[in-house]
């Protein structure tokens, strides 16, 4: 077990820069998600930590040891790959034992370790099968078990749930959280799915075009986005942005209330989406497209004009040009 520190990691492929000076501190036993759209550099960063890619500049430390120059096998970490990368020619048992075998652990220790990780991930009955005889979810478990079996200092996960269907993904997500909490392994988890990041992580690092936009707890990221990008990327539906007094105000759809005509601005509803737990309204207010999420079900027809008011304490002010968050103002 150990923390991990990333100092000024830069990576360029020829003329294009994939990562510019990324710094990140992950505490021992912490779960950090790297969240961002495809092409933001999150996978590149993970591969640099793993040693599968070489950084152009900067260094990676596990504990206090600089591992930047070490090959992947000497870094003391484990990885779960997006397409599982379970060895098809080995039985589940030998897949889980692979890392320990390569590290020269003795037979008794390997058997015991395989046994315990297999039961942790409910693979006990599948140990003598080949990966081809497993479902996608089971293969995913094997990949996680193989990684946990070596008791790594740091566990890296590259979109491990993205190849599962939606329902299974939800199950695996909860299971993963439980298993990783029990194992207490320092984890860096790459994903483009913000609900996954919110659900799993202690802290989230939002990446955008090779730069860290914000690092914070899920609640922090959600309620206090540091930039316009973070507000727009995290949350479904995303934050609304409206120009006001030469700046932008950001307001979450669920932080807008229906009020009487005297109290709020006019909101013309174009689309109503009843989602069960929420009713999602898309419309225009003051010439701007706006989304409002109301808790529960509401009998509202498209074409109606309502009156709305953002909750003042939830409003985020942002610089219109740079998209950076500004100190709170009292709205006029």
């Amino acid at each position, binding site marked *: 077990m150990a923390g991990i520190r990333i100092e000024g990691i830069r990576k360029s492929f020829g003329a294009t820069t994939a990562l510019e000076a990324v710094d990140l501190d992950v505490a021992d036993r912490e779960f950090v998600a790297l969240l961002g759209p495809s092409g933001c550099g999150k996978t590149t960063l993970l591969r640099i930590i*793993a*040693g*599968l890619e070489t950084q152009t500049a900067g260094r990676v430390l596990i504990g206090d040891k600089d591992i930047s120059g070490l*090959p*992947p*096998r000497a870094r003391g*970490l*484990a*990885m779960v*790959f*997006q*397409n599982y*990368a379970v*060895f*098809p*020619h080995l039985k589940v048992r030998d897949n889980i034992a*692979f*890392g320990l075998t*390569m*590290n020269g652990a003795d037979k008794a220790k390997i058997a015991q370790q395989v046994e315990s990780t297999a039961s942790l991930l409910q693979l006990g009955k599948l140990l003598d099968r080949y990966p081809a005889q497993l479902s996608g979810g089971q293969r995913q478990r094997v990949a996680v078990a*193989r990684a946990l079996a*070596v008791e790594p200092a740091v566990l890296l996960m590259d979109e491990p749930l993205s190849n599962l269907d939606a329902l299974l993904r939800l199950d695996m997500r909860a299971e993963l959280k439980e298993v990783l909490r029990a194992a207490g392994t320092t984890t860096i988890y790459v994903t483009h799915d913000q609900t996954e990041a919110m659900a799993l992580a202690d802290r989230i690092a939002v990446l955008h075009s090779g730069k860290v936009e914000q690092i914070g707890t899920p609640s922090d990221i959600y309620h206090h986005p540091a930039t316009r990008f973070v507000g727009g990327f995290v949350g479904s539906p995303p934050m609304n942005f409206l120009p006001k007094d030469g700046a932008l105000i950001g307001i979450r759809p669920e932080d807008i209330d229906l009020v009487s005509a005297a109290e709020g601005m006019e909101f013309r509803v174009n689309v109503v989406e009843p989602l069960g737990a929420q009713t999602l309204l898309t419309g225009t207010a003051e010439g701007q497209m706006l989304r409002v999420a109301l808790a529960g079900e509401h009998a509202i027809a498209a074409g109606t004009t309502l009156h709305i008011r953002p909750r003042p304490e939830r409003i985020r002010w942002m610089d219109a040009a740079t998209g950076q968050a500004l100190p709170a103002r009292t709205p006029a």
Partner: protein
Amino acid sequence: MTGKRALYLTGVAVICAWVLVPLWLLAANALGGQPVISAWPKPLIPSAFSFETMLEFLAIEGVFRAMLIGFEVALLCTFFSVLLGLPAGYALARYSFRGANAFRLMVLLTRAFPVGILALPLTVGFIRLGLYDTPLGIALMHTALALPFAVLVSASLFQAIPRELEEAAWVFGCSPLQAALRVVMPLALPGVSAVAIFAFVISWNEVFAASVLSARNRTLTAYLLAMLSESPLTYQFAGALLLIVPSVLFIYLVRKRLFAMWGIASR
């Protein structure tokens, strides 16, 4: 449904006949002796079935020795083709380097030169190097013929093995060489055996270069070419059977790997 099944069975029968009838004719003529050769229609199973002609044929001065040399050359060729072809194919599949496409083309171009044109300079060169009339010399020539196939097939072979598997092996404690041996090779084995078979068969069947580059130490094909035209029919059939058997045997031995490669469940 029955119509479809009948069609299917007919297809199977036709394909089997396509392969088996010539083999049967050859075997019957080689093993049945003179009476079968002159008989028509041929008996399904020759009455006087004997290995006599085959043994007589093998007893002919030089045949057995030529067969051994043929084997030696073919095995050497297989060895060199795999030894050189696999790493080259791996490099083509895994690394992008300047000139990769040119290299692919060059590899194929070696087949563009007719051996006939190269025969004289090759012979002269081989005499100077002391390779003329040696199994090693012929094997090197055959390797040149088999190598393009070996390189390109193993390149596509390695391309089909996900890079992540190798990366996973690195992360879980393997050096690049260990990863290649423990993860890549087991997965590539069916394809590698196809490469080996093909190199073997190319060498075993090749007659022109083998004839030109040898005088006394001939491979079986080269030896038979020189000798059979003046031999009785019985010996010609015996020689033909002898030429076919090793290839068939070799393919039989590795059939499991071939089946696995072609996606048919191996039995």
